[in-house]
């Protein structure tokens, strides 16, 4: 099936860091030496082991390399088939799980420099998300302030689970920086493993960890709303990446029901959580977690109650659809159009600067 339009904006791509060697040019003398002397390597996140077929679609691995580590393959497989105008790169490498916050900051900075030099400089359609050392909020804000001047960086990237739910006030300086710079904050599936992947501990299977990621997203959404992050930062947009969204209607019903009972506990939540989510939260498309039939998908989207929530993504090189079948059944043409172009442009103001 040929893709229905040109100018699509892919809001979730994963260029892969080949290994620490690739980051060495982007570290200062001290950290470059530490990495070499101490053998610091192997930071591929456990949330996305690179050899699992689901994490690297057929053809995405260069010879002996990781899926997503080759620009030419990304251009051929992710950008060309969908006539993509812009693709937003979310680099998943373990800087945000490191315990030494100074190392975390150095690695984050190196990842962002690497992305700029070896991807954004070489492919004008690509944009980036700022990897930040979430382990130390001051250092995270430093990296945002440092990087924000490069308008090819269009959002801030956080893992969906780290030390505490992101609504907590200790994270607010990051949201202040995001709002100040007009940058959405992306909560991308994945955990820093500070907590078990479920509240009952560690499941046996990667399948379970994967499915459980949406539970982290749901808890984060609840936190952001309940703590009043959107009251405090009315200009903030949050993007949930790889969270699925077909759980959203029941989540909103339950959140509203609880809020009606507990309003006095969180009195700064001045309107229904469903309204707050519709205004401030966006969801990438893949993986879709689609119901088995198109009619149910259409009803689910109707229940979500807005056509502004959805952002097109391929999640390349993660493998969620075959060939170019990136669009699930049950999306109206109007929603498809909004999802491919209008919603990403609204969500990422910096993209509009590149438009004629």
């Amino acid at each position: 099936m040929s893709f229905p339009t040109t100018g699509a904006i892919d809001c979730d791509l994963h260029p892969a860091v080949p290994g620490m060697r690739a980051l060495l040019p982007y570290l200062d003398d001290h950290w470059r030496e530490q990495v070499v002397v101490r053998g610091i390597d192997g930071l591929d996140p456990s949330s996305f082991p690179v050899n699992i077929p689901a994490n690297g679609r057929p053809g995405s691995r260069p010879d002996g390399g990781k899926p997503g580590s080759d620009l030419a393959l990304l251009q051929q497989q992710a950008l060309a088939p969908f006539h993509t105008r812009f693709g937003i790169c979310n680099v998943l490498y373990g800087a945000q799980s490191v315990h030494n916050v100074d190392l975390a900051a150095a690695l984050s900075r190196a990842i962002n420099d690497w992305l700029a030099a070896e991807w954004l400089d070489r492919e004008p359609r690509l944009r980036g998300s700022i990897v930040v050392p979430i382990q130390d909020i001051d250092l995270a804000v430093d990296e945002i302030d440092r990087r924000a001047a490069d308008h090819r960086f269009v959002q801030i990237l956080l893992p969906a689970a780290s030390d505490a739910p992101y609504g907590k006030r200790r994270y607010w300086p990051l949201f202040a920086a995001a709002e100040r710079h007009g940058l959405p904050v992306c909560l991308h599936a994945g955990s820093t493993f500070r907590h078990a992947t479920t509240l009952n501990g560690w499941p046996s299977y990667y399948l379970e960890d994967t499915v459980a990621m949406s539970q982290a997203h749901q808890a984060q959404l609840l936190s952001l709303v309940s703590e009043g992050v959107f009251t405090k930062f009315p200009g903030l947009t949050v993007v949930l990446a790889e969270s699925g969204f077909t759980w959203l209607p029941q989540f909103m019903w339950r959140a509203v029901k609880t809020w009606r009972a507990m309003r006095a506990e969180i009195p700064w939540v001045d309107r229904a959580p469903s309204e707050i989510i519709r205004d401030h939260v966006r969801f990438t498309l893949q993986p879709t977690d689609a119901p088995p039939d198109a009619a149910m998908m259409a009803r689910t989207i109707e229940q979500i109650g807005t056509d502004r929530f959805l952002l097109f993504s391929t999640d390349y090189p993660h493998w969620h659809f075959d060939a170019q079948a990136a669009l699930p059944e049950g999306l109206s043409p109007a929603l498809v159009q909004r999802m491919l172009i209008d919603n990403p442009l609204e969500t990422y103001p910096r993209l509009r600067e590149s438009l004629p």
Partner: protein
Amino acid sequence: MSKHVVATVAEIPPGKRKLVTVRGRSIAVFNLDGEFYGLFNRCPHQGGPMCEGILTGLIQSNEPGHYEYSRAGEILRCPWHGWEFDVRTGQSFCDPSKISVRSYPMEVAPGQTVVQGPYVAETIPVTVEEQYVVVEM
């Protein structure tokens, strides 16, 4: 509509309430600072005995971490599900989604920080005649 004596004034001192049945319907009369207010004892949510709930103040906030407390004793919490109702007006303090099949008008007056919802408990006109508390139903 007819008038019914439900209590003497002395029976319901400030801060107290009396539950009675009038014409087969359960109601309550509340004394808020010397003024009397009546509500039907049936929550518009699931029909619970809302007038048996606790009375609280109103907590409002414009900023997370800041709490403004006012109107002590004037907010009724239904014992089922905890919805808050303004005893004086019957208005609830929760607001369902604007995507609604029921088109109740919703208004937020300028300067208000608590959005009022379409779920309104039925109020009853209450007057004082000599030493008697009188409802009209």
